[in-house]
């Protein structure tokens, strides 16, 4: 095995171009488990820790650009206000020690259907900034997951950053597990309401985790809810609408029976989480004085 150390982003891209089989390592919270438990032995490790360009985030207009080296701990501390859904999900990852090392880019690199970063990224419409010596590709998160633990990166590409729109309304993340910490999701759900002043821009975002071969959006549920919510009038949530929304979210998933839960349980739990998170989000929307404008 080789240990490749990139000191700058340019050097990282060159190393990855020369050695496309090298496994990038950031927090190591997925990579090292595989090596320690002898589940796979990479030909080479490409350490991205020293790459200073990756460790920051910036605001670019309506977008937050989160560098690939930003840990969950920093997402929680520094981005809780602008990216609340992502920060909530980050809070449920592993333990403090895991959140001190683990990154969103690593979550995307691993592309586990159970990764907690995926549902909020799907719900808010995030974009993966993939780069190689050939140039930059902007890949919408919804197109990034190509199969169980597979993603759209080319062998010579690295994730430079994840671009996420600053929240334009309430966002919530919910996750089912046996404990409050150290839990791989039985299933998870994220919602984002975009209560824009422009009616045509009002939007509902969703993300489902651990209930299909890849994380995915509940597209029909989003369209249904966006059409039913009383965005401008601001009336209370119609229970029948919430129930139907939950049903459509559950219908979008394709869960299986496995050690963490049964398919039927996952479908049921998704409907419940969808209904509840919608309730919380709509409550916040009304309280913030949205609607009735």
């Amino acid at each position, binding site marked *: 095995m080789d*240990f490749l150390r990139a000191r700058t982003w340019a050097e990282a891209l060159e190393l990855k171009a020369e050695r496309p089989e090298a496994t990038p390592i950031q927090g190591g919270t997925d*990579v090292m488990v595989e090596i320690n438990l002898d589940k796979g032995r990479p030909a080479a490790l490409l350490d991205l820790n020293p790459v200073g360009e990756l460790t920051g985030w910036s605001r670019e207009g309506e977008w937050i650009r989160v560098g690939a080296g930003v840990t969950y701990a920093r997402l929680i501390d520094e981005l809780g206000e602008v990216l609340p859904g992502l920060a909530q999900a980050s809070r449920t990852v592993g333990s*403090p020690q895991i959140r001190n*090392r683990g990154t969103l880019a690593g979550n995307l690199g691993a592309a586990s259907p159970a990764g907690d970063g995926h549902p909020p990224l799907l719900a808010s419409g995030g974009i993966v900034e993939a780069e190689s010596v050939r140039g930059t590709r902007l890949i919408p998160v919804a197109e990034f997951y190509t199969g169980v633990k597979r993603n759209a990166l080319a062998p010579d590409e690295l994730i430079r950053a994840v671009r996420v729109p600053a929240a334009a309304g309430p966002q919530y993340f919910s996750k089912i597990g046996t404990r409050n910490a150290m839990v791989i999701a039985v299933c998870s759900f994220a919602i984002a309401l975009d209560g824009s002043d422009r009616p045509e821009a009002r939007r509902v975002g969703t993300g489902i985790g651990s209930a299909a071969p890849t994380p995915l959006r509940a597209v029909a549920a989003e369209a249904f809810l966006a059409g039913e919510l009383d965005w401008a009038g601001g009336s209370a949530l119609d229970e029948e609408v919430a129930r139907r929304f939950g049903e459509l979210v559950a219908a979008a998933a394709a869960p299986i029976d496995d050690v963490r839960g049964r398919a039927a349980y996952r479908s049921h739990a998704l409907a419940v989480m969808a209904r509840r998170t919608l309730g919380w989000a709509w409550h916040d929307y009304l309280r913030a004085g949205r609607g009735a404008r």
Partner: protein
Amino acid sequence: MRVNVTVNGRRMAADDVWEGESLLYVLRERLGLPGAKNACEQGECGSCTVYLDGTPVCACLVAAGQAEGREVVTVEGLVCGDDPAGEGGLHEVQRAFVAAGAVQCGFCTPGLVVQAHALVERTAGRVPEDAEIREALAGNLCRCTGYEKIIEAVRLAAAQRTTATPSP
């Protein structure tokens, strides 16, 4: 490969390190620092918790090469005073674990002490709420104590904390 790393304030070098090796293995097997424990090697138990550049992490999940040129503090590095080998040299978090009876077999203790140390440093000046303590220690498993005495030890350490305490 060779890995150069500052551990507990001393510059050290480990030779013949395998590229896929963890920082935990280097500390225990190559640098003679068995304080951090190896229990799961998959980040689940926290018994290998050490500071890496001031942040508590699972040493079993840091590739040895990633520690190159960085600063590590292990449980051994928390001792202080002129009698580091005796009980007088123990850090107040360590003393609180002894006083509260928070140690049974002791396997989880080094990781818990480092993680508790980080919490007490962060909340300096106040005693953290139980919920906050539980959250901070959620990544450290103990098979013996049932956690009550450990939480008591953290409360005790936080209460006794004086501003004169040296910190790593």
